[in-house]
């Protein structure tokens, strides 16, 4: 009964979305306030209807209702509650419901918090947003309905893929979708602006918080995914340049570019058509990610069940929305007025370079990911593109970008003074030089690549810190004055400083791990000892235990340094009988400077067990750096919400009065 309710709610949501697509758009064209006003309650109702559908599916999972096919195929009665819930989006149909739920959530948020938006823009944004909803709700109802019944119902379900039964992965898809779908907001604003034929600084001020929110979620989502791959797959690595990883990384790169170009529109009223194009392309790349994962045109370890019909449908959505938006762009953008002029050496110039480099980076990932597809379609040849390609093309683009990141924020708007900025960079040079010398001293007998990486990270950190110190006149003024300046600094300034520092920390982690990771594989019986990176590890015991829906072997490994006890870790090897699949649960002992990563392989008391140990230097810095970027984003977001749409307050009041008069 509840499943049918969910199905009904989905149909209802589709109908509401249809109304929300058409009526406000027409109203905006006719300047009819009551028709435009339909958008707001419709967005709310659509969100509620989809939330009910989502709730119904969750209910089916939590109560293990195996008469629903989707539940029978992806759940099991013995599964812990958290994974019953995360199982809702651990499959194609359920994840699409989450997709539209988040899409509607963003529409709902605009309807609720967008009270200061100019009414025609708001109506058009909500209408475009709802049209995306129509497309995906139609997709779900026609090809991927999660509420279909199964008769007779099986006694128990087939269980979720054990690799996905993990707290990191429970939250990875929702975060990723918040990011992907969040860029739909930038897209809707871009298309609405093209319909209006007008882009002004206020528009950019509106787009930025939504883009930032999406960027934060995507950064967090990608980080969670990479962290999960690191500790769950038991290979000790954290990024594989897999097509699906790339599919999430491309919108991140172009979203980062969008974030920066929107600043130029807001502050200087320039780069308008470019920003619109970036907004369209960023969402296009998000949609492309969805398409690639679900159509099976590329092979990847991530791919969902491959279904050509679904692939074709998503491709149709992609063509309709992105193609339509790009046609409008081609028609409308040329007539947009060029904004403020600026010298090449200026903050704007720096941000243009940032955008160019990020676009080239996106393009390299795009080419590397899709080259096999293009080649196969033209010549029938099969190739695979792996990490060597990306290391050879992507990294060289990042080097000038990082160099620029220290200089750009020091340049003034409109016309910057390069030599003045350069003279402020002494701290960056010093820090960069100091770190390189230190790294070289630590590892003087090894290749120079990590030294270059650390020099870059030091340069970036030095430049960022110096820029921040200059802003609050640290060391040039009294400390109390500096502190009060720091208090008055806008939060977005803190956000930028943190995000750039986060990247610097991330670079250290990535460089150190790829250069100095060590690995030991041994066959160990109980009481055997091995050593790795100056630590000794002893396999104490291996116990057989029972988990909620799996059997497990748990090893106790004591880690010592120079004979002194450091810690005990407990790597596990689990076997899930329903899916007949083993998983490894690596144990990680982490210090601020490195991880000791222990993973237990197959074995027995007589034969001994295979034990893999990795020493991953600075790898915690990778996650820490990403988290700091997320934190910077959040702080920046908390700033902007306060001053959102301020210039429209008065205008809005008038509209409200008009509306009241009409109603009376």
């Amino acid at each position, binding site marked *: 009964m509840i499943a049918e309710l969910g199905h009904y709610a989905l149909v209802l949501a589709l109908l509401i979305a249809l109304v929300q697509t058409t009526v406000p758009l027409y109203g905006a064209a006719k300047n009819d306030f009551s028709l435009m006003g339909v958008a707001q309650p419709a967005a709310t109702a659509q969100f509620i209807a989809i939330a009910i559908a989502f709730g119904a599916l969750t209910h089916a999972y939590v109560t293990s209702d195996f008469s629903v096919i989707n539940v029978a195929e992806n759940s099991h009665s013995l599964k812990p509650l958290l994974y019953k819930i995360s199982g809702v989006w651990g499959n194609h149909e359920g994840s699409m419901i989450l997709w539209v739920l988040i899409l509607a959530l963003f529409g709902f948020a605009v309807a609720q918090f967008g009270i200061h938006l100019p009414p025609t823009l708001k109506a058009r944004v909500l209408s475009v947003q709802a049209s995306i909803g129509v497309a995906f709700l139609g997709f779900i109802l026609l090809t991927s309905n999660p509420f279909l019944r199964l008769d007779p119902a099986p006694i128990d379900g087939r269980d979720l893929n054990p690799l996905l039964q993990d707290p990191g992965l429970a939250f990875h898809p929702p975060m990723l979708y918040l990011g992907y779908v969040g860029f739909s907001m930038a897209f809707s604003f871009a298309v609405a602006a093209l319909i209006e034929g007008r882009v002004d600084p206020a528009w950019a001020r509106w787009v930025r918080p939504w883009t930032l929110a999406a960027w934060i979620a995507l950064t967090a989502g990608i980080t969670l995914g990479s962290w999960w791959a690191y500790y769950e797959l038991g290979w000790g690595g954290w990024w594989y340049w897999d097509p699906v990883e790339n599919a999430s990384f491309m919108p991140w790169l172009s979203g980062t570019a969008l974030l920066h170009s929107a600043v130029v529109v807001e502050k200087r009223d320039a780069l308008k058509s470019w920003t619109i194009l970036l907004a369209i392309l960023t969402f296009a790349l998000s949609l492309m990610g969805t398409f690639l994962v679900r159509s*099976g045109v590329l092979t990847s370890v991530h791919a969902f069940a491959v279904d050509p019909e679904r692939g074709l449908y998503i491709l149709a959505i*992609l063509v309709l929305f992105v193609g339509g938006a790009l046609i409008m762009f081609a028609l409308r953008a040329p007539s947009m007025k060029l904004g403020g002029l600026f010298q090449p050496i200026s903050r704007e110039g720096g941000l243009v370079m940032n955008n160019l480099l990020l676009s080239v980076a996106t393009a390299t990932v795009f080419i590397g990911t899709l080259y096999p597809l293009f080649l196969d379609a033209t010549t029938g040849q099969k190739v695979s593109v792996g990490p060597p390609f990306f290391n050879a093309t992507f990294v060289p683009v990042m080097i000038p970008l990082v160099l620029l990141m220290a200089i750009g924020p020091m340049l003034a708007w409109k016309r910057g003074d390069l030599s003045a900025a350069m003279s402020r960079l002494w701290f960056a040079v010093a820090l960069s030089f100091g770190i390189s010398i230190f790294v070289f001293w630590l590892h003087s007998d090894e290749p120079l690549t990590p030294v270059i990486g650390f020099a870059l990270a030091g340069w970036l950190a030095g430049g960022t810190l110096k820029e921040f110190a200059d802003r609050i006149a640290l060391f040039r003024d009294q400390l109390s004055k500096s502190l009060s300046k720091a208090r008055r600094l806008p939060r977005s300034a803190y956000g930028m400083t943190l995000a750039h520092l986060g990247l610097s920390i991330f670079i250290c982690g990535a460089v150190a791990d790829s250069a100095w990771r060590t690995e030991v594989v041994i066959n160990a019986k109980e009481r055997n000892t091995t050593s790795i990176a100056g630590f000794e590890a002893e396999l104490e015991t291996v116990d057989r235990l029972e988990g909620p829906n799996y059997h497990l072997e748990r090893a106790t490994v004591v880690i010592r340094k120079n004979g002194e006890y450091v810690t005990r870790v407990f790597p596990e090897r689990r076997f899930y009988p329903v899916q007949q699949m083993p998983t490894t649960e690596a144990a990680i002992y982490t210090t601020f400077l490195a991880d000791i990563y222990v993973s237990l*392989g197959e*074995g027995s008391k007589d034969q001994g067990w295979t034990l893999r140990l990795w020493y991953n230097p600075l790898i915690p810095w990778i996650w820490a750096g990403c988290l700091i970027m997320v934190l910077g984003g959040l702080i920046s977001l908390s700033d902007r919400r306060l001053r959102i749409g301020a210039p429209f307050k008065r205008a809005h009041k008038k509209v409200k009065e008009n509306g009241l008069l009409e109603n009376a």
Partner: protein
Amino acid sequence: MRKLIYLGPLLFFIITAVYFALPILKGKDPRILPSAMIEKNIPDLNLPPLLETKPGIDKQALMGEIQLVNFFSSWCGPCRTEHDFLMSVSKSEIIPIYGINYKDKQNAAKAWLLDLGDPYERIGRDIDGRTAIDWGVYGVPETYLIDKYGRIQYRHVGPLSESIFKEKISPIIKALRKQTNG
């Protein structure tokens, strides 16, 4: 002229979309890879052994018997997924499997076999990946079915599974065995 520039993104997108549509419309599964080597003799090879207990592989070793040749590496995730199945094939003695250890560290490969079991008759080390190039290997894991004259009869890219083996490989084995008997 300036207006034409604004058409650029659209044109680029259309071309991309066509390439996306082609494989779906042709009903192509990207995982099926044709091999130029079908019905051809296996290339010359002479690979050093991985384990002290088993000899390496040369061309002579692969002749005279219907067999599978499996390219694998300890660093390859999908190899891990097919390994259980390879173990069951080797236990049931349906067909002998020869392993070619592709671009791997010797210790890592040994540990892998110690860890997961060793399904192979013999194992040769393809240290620099030269043999894999000669065979036209797309990526590990990859499995070739060889007849007793040393000709490649079938090639599967990606991890083997029971269903693939039953549907694709078993019929060819049966046909080949019939030919030899009849």
